[in-house]
Every structure is written in C-alpha cells, then in structure tokens.
C-alpha cells in the first residue's frame, strides 16, 4: 500500500514538474513576443489563445457538446470538420518539455515535432490532446507514418495517404479519401454532413482566409507595419481558434494596420534586412528563430512554412457548386498548390519561393531544418542553387527543440544579417543634430 502511495506521489510530482517546465517555457516566449516592439493593436486575442493553451493548459474554446478533431497537417481540410459540427485543432507541437519526454519514447533520430507529440501523448496532461475524439494524420513523412501507428493505440486515428504526385488520378484517390474522412467524422461526431453544413464550413474558413489575404497584403507594405514574429504568433494561434473567431480577431488587427498605414505609423523607420523563412514548420513555443532574426536587426518579411502563411493561404475555389464539386474544390486546394516536400516532384516550391521573394523584396532566405526532418533537408541544395542564381543568399539553420543552440544560432543569424546589410545601399545619414 505504501509503495502504491509512493508511486502515486512520485507520478504526481513528475506531472507537476512537467507542467511547471512546460508552462514556464511557453510563458517566456509569450513574454518575449509581447516585449518585441511594434505590435499592432488587436494582438490580445492571439496572445490570450496561446497563453490559454500552453500556459494555463486549457482546452480549445468551443461550444458545449462540440467535439474536437486533432489534425497534423494542412492537408486535412478544416471545412469538413466544421461541417461535421466539430472543431479542428492542429496538434503539431513545438514544446521543449514534451520533446524531452518524447525523446525517450520516439527514436533518437525522429524529428522533434514528432517527439513532442509523443511526449504529450505519453504524459496525457495536455488538454488539447486529451480532448480529441479522433486524430487525422496525413502521411506526409516517415515520422508521421510511424507516429500514426503509435497514436492509434491511444486514440481513434485515421490516416490519409498523401499521393506522391498531383496527377488527375492522384486527385481522384484523394477525393475518395475525403469521402472516407467525411464518413468517419459523421460517425465520430454523430452529425451528418449536409450540403448546407459543408457550405457553412466553407464560409467559416473562407472568411478567415479573406482576412489573412488582407493581412498579408498589409504585411508586405514598406516600411513595415508589423514584425514577422508577431505575424507568426497570429498564424500559430489559428491552430487553436475556430476559424470565424480567428478571422474576426484578425479583422481588428487589419483595421489597426490600415490606420497605422494612413498615419504612417511603422514598426521602424530603419531599412531592416528582409528575410524569408522557409523549411520545417515553426510551431509555438519554438519561435526562437523568428525572434532571433528580429532581435538581431532583421525582419521576417516572408514565411513559407506550413504553420505560417502557407497553412491558410490557398483558398478553395468552387467551380461546380454541387456537393461533390465542393469536395473536389477541397482536394484541389489541398494538393495542387501545396509546396510540401512530401511530393516526389516539388518544383512548384521553387516557383512559390521566387514569387514570395519578388513580392516581399526579400534579401536573404533562412532555410530552417528541424533535426531529422529529412524531406526538407533534401530540398535544401536545390533551393540554394536556384536562389543562388538570383543572387539571394541562403543559409541552412538546423535546430532542435531546446535552447542549447540559441547562442550558435544567434551568431549565425547575426552574421547573415550583417552580410545582407553590407550588400544593401547605405541608408541616408540622419540630419546633423545642432542642439540638444
């Protein structure tokens, strides 16, 4: 009996320690985000969401009786989940404490994102994971493939086979899987997906996407109206907020940005090196890289990561307004424009990067590779060569979910920013101060 009590108290102490460490890291990064100057008005709902999920460890906000469906990739259409009356929540995690727990469960060479997921699943302390009635895992890489097997022991899991190419027959196959997903969602939630409910799902996500496109248009302004780290906080919080609520909150930010634009209130008057961030996803609280870039005097002007702008950017285009037409629109949106390296031929990622470089007047690219994320690492050389021809410098930053490499990353980022500064035309000297 004493042994059992002792084991229980040991477990409780371990859980308490986990919660303390987890919340402390999240709170620290949230504080750094808040301290970063130049945030527009209206950021509070996004900070509050991240705080609620990672610091207060609360579940996502939803209506009573509504179910939560966990997803692991942008290739799971949220419209279908909304249509089934459930709330989607992206479970990809950037948590350092969960990563350290997952490190002893998942293989050493697995990517940190998957280790963090395994860690959260093991501890069972994170409400967003506990709450999930079902998890949808698109098989985009080896780690996701194997984690699907591991998670299926704990929760209902549905895998989606992402085809290696985007041919018509691949699209048909994906459409069939979406119909399967629909059936599973109906079974899990008990709500049938009707034409009207699916249209409602489209409206919710469409509204959020409209606001996002407006936000990105404002973000492109020169001089800058918002910092990339703040933009990333906004985009990361979309994983834990219903699309319509998130869209409304973003609308307020857009209004504030528009006002700032008319009043010429910019983040800084200095000409900061404009950096494009691409590669492995950047998930809160692992936002050390965008924070370091902006603390070192650069600005994250473009973001091609799947937890960033890419996640919600492409709208579903309905050309046939039947039910099947809407499902086809979802499949088209998920596969055709997606520059995810899961596709065997991913040359459109290069076009997308070139487009982003042109639109955002990018001066340098930081290629983020999470340790063990082989698919992104594989594409680095090709992108370095392509961008080299355009005269855009690229550096590959490999990192993990811990803070041990921060100083090394800082030095590399600082040197990269210096390099860009040396290339750019010198700023006009400020007028000589004649009196105090």
């Amino acid at each position, binding site marked *: 009996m004493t042994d059992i009590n002792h084991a229980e108290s040991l477990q409780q102490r371990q859980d308490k320690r986990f919660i303390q460490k987890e919340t402390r890291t999240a709170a620290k990064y949230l504080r750094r985000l808040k301290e970063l100057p130049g945030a527009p008005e209206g950021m509070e709902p996004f900070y509050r969401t991240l705080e609620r999920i990672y610091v207060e460890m609360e579940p996502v906000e939803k209506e009573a009786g509504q179910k939560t469906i966990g997803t692991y990739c942008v290739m799971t259409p949220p419209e279908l989940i909304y249509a089934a009356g459930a709330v989607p929540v992206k479970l990809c995690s950037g948590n350092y404490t969960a990563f350290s727990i997952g490190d002893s469960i998942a293989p050493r060479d697995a990517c940190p994102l998957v280790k963090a997921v395994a860690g959260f699943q093991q501890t069972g302390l994170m409400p967003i994971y506990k709450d999930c009635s079902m998890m949808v895992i698109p098989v985009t890489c*080896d780690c996701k493939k*194997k984690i*699907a097997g591991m998670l299926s022991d704990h929760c209902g899991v549905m895998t989606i086979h992402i085809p290696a190419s985007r041919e018509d027959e691949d699209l048909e196959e994906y459409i069939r899987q979406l119909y399967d997903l629909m059936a599973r969602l109906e079974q899990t939630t008990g709500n049938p997906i009707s034409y009207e409910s699916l249209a409602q799902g489209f409206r919710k996500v469409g509204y959020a996407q409209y606001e996002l496109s407006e936000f990105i248009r404002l973000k492109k302004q020169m001089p800058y109206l918002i910092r990339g780290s703040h933009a990333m906080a906004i985009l990361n919080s979309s994983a834990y907020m219903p699309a319509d609520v998130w869209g409304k909150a973003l609308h307020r930010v857009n209004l504030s940005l528009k006002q700032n634009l008319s009043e010429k209130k910019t983040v800084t008057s200095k000409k900061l090196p404009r950096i494009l961030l691409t590669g492995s996803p950047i998930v809160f609280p692992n936002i050390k890289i965008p924070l370091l870039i902006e603390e070192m005097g650069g600005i994250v002007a473009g973001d091609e990561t799947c937890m960033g702008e890419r996640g919600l950017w492409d709208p579903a285009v309905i050309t046939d307004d039947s039910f099947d037409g809407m499902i086809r629109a979802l499949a088209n949106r998920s596969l055709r424009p997606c520059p995810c390296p899961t596709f065997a031929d991913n040359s459109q990622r290069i076009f997308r990067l070139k487009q982003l470089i042109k639109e955002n007047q990018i001066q340098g690219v930081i290629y983020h590779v999470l340790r063990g994320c082989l698919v992104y690492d594989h594409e680095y050389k090709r992108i370095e060569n392509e961008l080299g021809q355009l005269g855009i410098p690229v550096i590959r930053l490999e990192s993990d979910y811990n803070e041990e490499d921060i100083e090394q990353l800082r030095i590399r980022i600082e040197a990269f920013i210096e390099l860009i500064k040396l290339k750019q035309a010198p700023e006009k000297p400020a007028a000589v101060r004649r009196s105090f």
Partner: protein
Amino acid sequence: MKHQHLSSHQTDSFDKEYCESLNRLYNDNIRLSEIRWFFNRAYDWAYDTEAPSPEVVLLGTAIPEELVIASGAVPYWIIGGSLGSCAWSDDLVPRDTDPVSRSITGYINRPDGMDLSDSLFVVPLMNDSMRKMAYDLKSSGRKVCLIDIPPDRKDPYAVEKYTGQLKAMCEAVSKQTKTRVTRKSVAAAMKTVSHARNTMRRFMEVSRGHQDIITDAARLFVINAYYMISSPEEWCYHTECLINEIEYRSGTSKQFTQKDPAVMLLGSPVLFPNEKIPFLVSDSGLMISEAVDYVSMKSFVTYSSRALWGSRDRLIRKIAARWLAYDSAPAFVRNDALYDYVSWFVRNRKTEGVIYHVLKGQIEYDFELERFETMLAQYGIPVFRLETDYQYQDVEQLRIRMEAFSEMLTQRRYREVKKAS
C-alpha cells in the same frame, strides 16, 4: 576463376570493400565449389564494363519484379549496400540520409559506372529518401516510374490503389521495352518468380545450422546474388546445385562440437558488399538462424498454380494483394507482416536471441522496436539493438557488444541445463 584478378581493382573504397568481402566469403567457404558461380556473377555485376545498359532499373527490392519480367524487361537492381558507393553520393544527399538510399544514389551517379541515361527507373516510395531520390532523378531528366505504396494496410481500398500503381508500372515498363503485357506473360513470370522464391526459402532452410559447410554471411550473400543476376532461372539452377552440395556434405560429415547460440537477425537488411554484421556475428560465436528483413521476406510472396488463372488484370490484382499482405518494407504505418512472421518464427524455431539491426537513418525500424521487444519478452528472448551504418570504424565497439551478447546467451544455456538437472 575471375576472383583471382580482384586485387587489380582495389583502387578506391568501393573496390576495396567489394573485393575484401568477396575474398573473405570465398576463403571462408573454399570447400563449396557451387558457390563460386555466385562470386563470379557478383564480380561481373560490379566490374563488367561491356554489359549492355539496362532498359529498366529497379531501385531497392520492394518492387514486384514479376511484372517487370512480364513486361519484357530484364530487371537490373540497384539495392545499395556499399560504403564506397555512399561516398559517391556525399554531395547529393543530406547528412542524415540512411546508408541504403545513399548507396543507391551513389551507384546511379557512379563516376565510371554504367550508362543509365536511357533507362527507366522504377522507384518504390517506401520512405522519404526514396521519394526525394525520385525527385532528383526526374530533375536530372531521367525516365522515372513511381510506385506509391499505400501506407495503411487496413485501408479497404489499399489493394485497389496498389493494383492501380502496378498497372501504371506495367504500362511504363512495356512502353520502354515495346512489349505488350499479356495474361500469358504475367502468369509465366509469376511462375518463374515463385520458383525462385521457393528456392530461396528452401536454401535458407537447408543451409541453416551448417556453419561448418556454409557461413551465415555466405547464406545471405547467395540471397543477395539474386539481385545481381539477370535471369531468375539461372539463379535457381545454381542455387539448387548449391543446395544439393550442402545436403551431400551435411550427410557425409558431422559437426561434433556444440552449436553456437542461434540468433535472429531482424530489422534493416544486410546487403552485399557490406557484410560487416554477419561477419561479426560469426566471429562472436553466434549463428544466424534467420535473417528477417524486407529482402528475405520476399521469399514468402509466392503464387500457387491456382492463382495463375484469370485475366491479366486479375493476375495483377492478385500480385498486389499478395504483396500488400507479405511485404515487410518500412512503407507501412505498422509493419505487421514482419511482426507476424517473427512471432511465428520464435514459436516454431529455436531462437535464443534477437539482434535488432538498425541502419542509421532508418528510423522506421526504431519506431517498431518497442513492439518487437514486448512480444519477444513474452517468449523470454533477449533483444540486442545494434545501430550502425556502412562505416567500418565502429567494428571493434560492435564486436565487444556482440561478444558480450554471445556470452550472455551461452550463460543462459548453462543456466537452463542446470535448472533442468
């Protein structure tokens, strides 16, 4: 014998490794005359510069070659296995790429290698490296045919999907060879390949436990040699001759010493010329009872004579269904084929320990380790995880660990004898 001329080729690391492995296999099995044919073929595969360029190149072993043969092509496999060829791909792949994919990429880009510019590459997408390798091949202007293996066997449409993939492959290969795929050609190829796989199984069964006649490394090499020979019939004929010789020798000579502890070699496949692990196993006083990996498990994908009936499309569907059920490549969410076979094997054959071989970067095996450990623990079988790559620098560390494992298994034997008495 061509084997005597090997030293002239020992110029770089590929040649060195290739020839050293061949030399050791030859010296360890010098009494077996029938095995020399396999050595000669392996030598030809690597050094015959006059061989014609292959029409179809198969990357890895996870491709149903029966359909390639039925489409009129002579399969030319590149399955990896060499440290030397890894060096040729150093600048082409990321640091963490697994050695098998590295080695395959190296072979394709071998500086003085065969001209593969006009060949069709068939790439099974069983892992991330293969996926990206396909991208590289396509970008360099080569003809590529992808086989997208459905990752979830529980998917009710998995067989349909896979059938579609295999049909597309047949189409691509027959376009390359300009040969029609007919019901007759598919059935004939299924029959040929079934015979070869049955021979593989019989060879492994007959040669098991006869280390005094054929070493474990040589057993694995003979299976690997199948992928270096253009004609399965020829391989079968010579393997049958070898089986006869082993049976004859085992009948005329008896081993009087106690047999070494029998271990199962599970996980990443051992591919020639990197025979580091089987050499170490035998040096440490262990015997490989079975090598269970996706290369050896192919021997279970056979077809009965009844399965050869039906239309062409029906036969392709049967091939797809059979492959999905028995394929143990790391392409699946759960590698149930491998798991089920291991659990059957340990129940029915003597296995005193398991060496779980993980090649660095092949994390799929690492993900499954816990599941295997739990199952094997129920049978009281110790599992020893051995992680390595194709480098030879860790040989001495591995040797120490392997010897300790061997000693532990020997001590267990004594304990059991003591307990019984």
